[in-house]
C-alpha cells in the first residue's frame, strides 16, 4: 500500500509552519492523555507516582486536578496486581492507561500482560476485548545501568494479541497515544527517556497515527537505515555523517513494531540493496532480527541485498560512562557500519566527530 504510507509521511509536517506549535515529547503525551480523558470518561490513568509532584516527567501533570483521584491515581508498588487490575477494568468497559517509569519493571507484570491481556480476546472466543494501554520508559545514561535501561519490546512483539509502538517524535507521541487509547486491544507504548527531551511540531487538535504504518524520515538510495526508538535519532545523525562521504541513506522509523509495516522497509531495500537495522535493545532474537528475517523472506530469489543488525552490546548495561559509550550504537558507529555495508568490505572508516551531532547527554535526575 504505497499511497497510504506516503500519505502517512506527508501528514507529518517536515518543519513547523508559523501557525504550528512546537511541543516537547512530554507535553505531547500529556496533551494526548488530557484530550482523550476529556473526550471519554472511561479513560483512566494510573501507575506508581502518576499523581506525585513530578508527575512522570510531567506527562501526567495537571490531570489529577482536572479529572480527580478516581481517574488519576498513584498505585501501591504492585506491578503484577495493578496490571491485572487494569485488565479487570478493561473487561468492565474502561480504557485504562497504566504507566511505568521504567520498562524493566514490566518484568513483574509479565503474567498479566502475556497470559491475560494478550490472550483474553482469543481464548474467550471474542466475547471480551482488553482496551489497555501500558506506557513504559527505556532509560539511558547517567548510571541507569543494568535494571533501568532495558529495551525489552521484542518480548512483547513475540506474542500474538499485543501491539507495540515506539514513537520517536512529539508528533507521533501524541498521535500514537491517541490511537492506542482508542484501540480495543492492548497496546504497549514504549517511550525513551532521552526522547522525552525532544521538541517538535504537534497540532493542537486530536489525531491518530495509524497502527502498522512506518514512516520514511529521510529519502536516499544507497542504504536503508531502520532506527528503532531512540536509535531513530542516531540514524538521522548518522545520515549526516554519511552525506560527507557521498552516501545517501534512506532512514525509516517503523513507529509501530507490532503490527509491523514491513512493506515500506521492503520497498526501500529493493531500491537500496542494503539494510542496516539499529535496535534499541539486544540483537539476539530482537526486533532487528525479526525485521531482517521478514525482509529476507520477501526478497529472497529476486533481489539480493546486504544486511546488518546493530544494537546493545551483548552484555549487561554498565554504568561507567567509558564503558557505556561502547555499549550503545551511536551516530558514528552506525555511519561506519552503513559505509561498510555500501562498500561491501570492512573499510575501517569512522567519521570525525561533529560536536553539533553529539548525542544529548542525560544528566539526571530520573
Amino acid at each position, binding site marked *: 500500500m504505497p499511497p497510504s504510507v506516503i500519505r502517512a509521511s506527508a501528514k507529518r509536517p517536515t518543519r513547523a509552519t508559523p501557525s504550528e506549535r512546537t511541543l516537547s515529547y512530554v507535553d505531547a503525551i500529556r496533551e494526548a492523555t488530557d484530550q482523550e480523558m476529556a473526550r471519554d470518561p472511561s479513560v*483512566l490513568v494510573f501507575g506508581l507516582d502518576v499523581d506525585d509532584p513530578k508527575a512522570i516527567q510531567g506527562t501526567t501533570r495537571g490531570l489529577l486536578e482536572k479529572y480527580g483521584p*478516581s*481517574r488519576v491515581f498513584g*498505585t*501501591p508498588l*504492585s506491578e*503484577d*496486581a*495493578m*496490571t*491485572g*487490575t*487494569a*485488565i*479487570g*477494568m*478493561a*473487561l*468492565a*468497559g*474502561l480504557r*485504562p492507561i497504566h504507566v511505568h517509569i521504567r520498562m524493566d519493571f514490566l518484568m513483574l507484570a509479565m*503474567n*498479566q500482560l502475556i*497470559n*491475560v491481556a494478550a490472550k*483474553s*480476546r*482469543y*481464548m*474467550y*472466543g*471474542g*466475547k*471480551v476485548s482488553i482496551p489497555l494501554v501500558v506506557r513504559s520508559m527505556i532509560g539511558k545514561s547517567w548510571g541507569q545501568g543494568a535494571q533501568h535501561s532495558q529495551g525489552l519490546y521484542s518480548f512483547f512483539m513475540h506474542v*500474538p*494479541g499485543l*501491539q507495540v509502538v515506539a514513537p520517536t517524535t512529539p508528533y507521533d507521541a501524541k498521535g500514537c497515544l491517541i490511537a492506542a487509547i482508542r484501540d480495543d*486491544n492492548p497496546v504497549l507504548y514504549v517511550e525513551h527517556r532521552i526522547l522525552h527531551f525532544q521538541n517538535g511540531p504537534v497540532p493542537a487538535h486530536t489525531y491518530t497515527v495509524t497502527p502498522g504504518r512506518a514512516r520514511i524520515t529521510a529519502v536516499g538510495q544507497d542504504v536503508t537505515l531502520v532506527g528503532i526508538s531512540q536509535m531513530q535519532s542516531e540514524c538521522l545523525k548518522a545520515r549526516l555523517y554519511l552525506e560527507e562521504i557521498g552516501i545517501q541513506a534512506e532512514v525509516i522509523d517503523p513507529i509501530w513494531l507490532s503490527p509491523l509495516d514491513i512493506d515500506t522497509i521492503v520497498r526501500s531495500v529493493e531500491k537500496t540493496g542494503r539494510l542496516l537495522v539499529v535496535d534499541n535493545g539486544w540483537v539476539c532474537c530482537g526486533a532487528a532480527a525479526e525485521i531482517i528475517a521478514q525482509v529476507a523472506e520477501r526478497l529472497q530469489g529476486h533481489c539480493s541485498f546486504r544486511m546488518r543488525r546493530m544494537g546493545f552490546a551483548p552484555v549487561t548495561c554498565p554504568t561507567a560512562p567509558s564503558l557505556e559509550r561502547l555499549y550503545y550504537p551511536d551516530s558514528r558507529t552506525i555511519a561506519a557500519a552503513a559505509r561498510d555495508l555500501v562498500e561491501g568490505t570492512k573499510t575501517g572508516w569512522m567519521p570525525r566527530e561533529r560536536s553539533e551531532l553529539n548525542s544529548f547527554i542525560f544528566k539526571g535526575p530520573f
Partner: protein
Amino acid sequence: MLERLYRSLYRIRRLEEAFARVYPTDKIKSPIHLSIGQEAVSVGVCAALRLDDVVFGTYRGHALYLAKGGDMKAMAAELYGKATGCTRGKGGSMHLISTEVGMMGASAVVGTTIANAVGYAYALQYQGRDALVASFFGDGGSEEGVFAESLNFAALKCLPILFICENNGYAIHTSQERRQGRPDICARARAYGIPAERIEHNDVLYLFERTRTVAAKIRAGGGPHFFEVMTYRWREHVGPNNDFHLGYRTEDEATPWIEADQVTRLGAMLLPERREQIQEEVEAEVEAALVFAEESPEPEPAELYTDVL
C-alpha cells in the same frame, strides 16, 4: 430456595459425573479439573448474587460457570472442542466464560484472576453501579504474590468485592501444611484490613446466608470481605478418577466429607417427589447437553485466525 440450591448442586454433580464417564472415550478434548465435592462453594455464593454481579474463577471452574447461570450446552460443547462451545473451541475447560450472566473468566495460571476481579470491582465503583464482584481461587492461589497485592489494593480503595478462597487442603498433591508457614489464610486477609471468616464443613446453606448478608454490606459501600470456605476435592487434581492410591492423602480423610455431601444433604431436605422431579429434569438436561456437544460441528479452519486482535 432449597429447591434452587439443590437443582444447582445436582446439575453440577451430574454433569461432571457424566464428563468423568465419557472421559475415557476421548471425546472430551480438554483437561478436566472436576469440582465434585466442592460444588457447594460456587452454589452457596452464586445463589445469593444477582445476575449483574460478576464472578471470576479458576481452571477448576465448571461449578462456578454453571452456578452463575452459564449455559450447560455451550459448556459441554466447549469441552468437546466444538464451534458451539462458550468460547467457540478457543478456551476449553479451563477458560469458561459467559458474559451474559456475569461469569467473566477463569485462568489456568494460579492466582491470576484475583487481580482481574479487583479491577472489575474498581470499574463498578467508578461507574457508580451497586453490583459486586466475587473472586474465587484455591488455597494454593493464596500463596501467589498477586493475592497479597490484590487484597491490599481492594482494601485501599474499599472496593465492592467478595474474596472466596476454596480451601480443599491441597495444591495438586501437596497439603496446605506443607506449603504455608502459618496455615491461616483468613489471618492474611485481616492483615490487609479485610474482614475475614472461615466457613467450615462445606456448608452450602450457611454460606448462602452469609453471602446474602455480606453482599448487602458490600453493596452499601462496606468494602471487601473474605471467605475461606473449607471444602474437599473427591477426585484427582486433574482427570476423572480417584487418586487415593498415590498416598498423599487417605480415604479416611475423605470419608467425613463424603458423608457430609451437600448434594445428598439438600436432597434429603426436599419432599421425595420434588427431589425426583428435579433429578429427572437434570438428567434430561445433562443428556441433552452431551448430545448437543457430540452433534455440534467442529470450528472452521478460518476460526484459527479470528479474534487475535
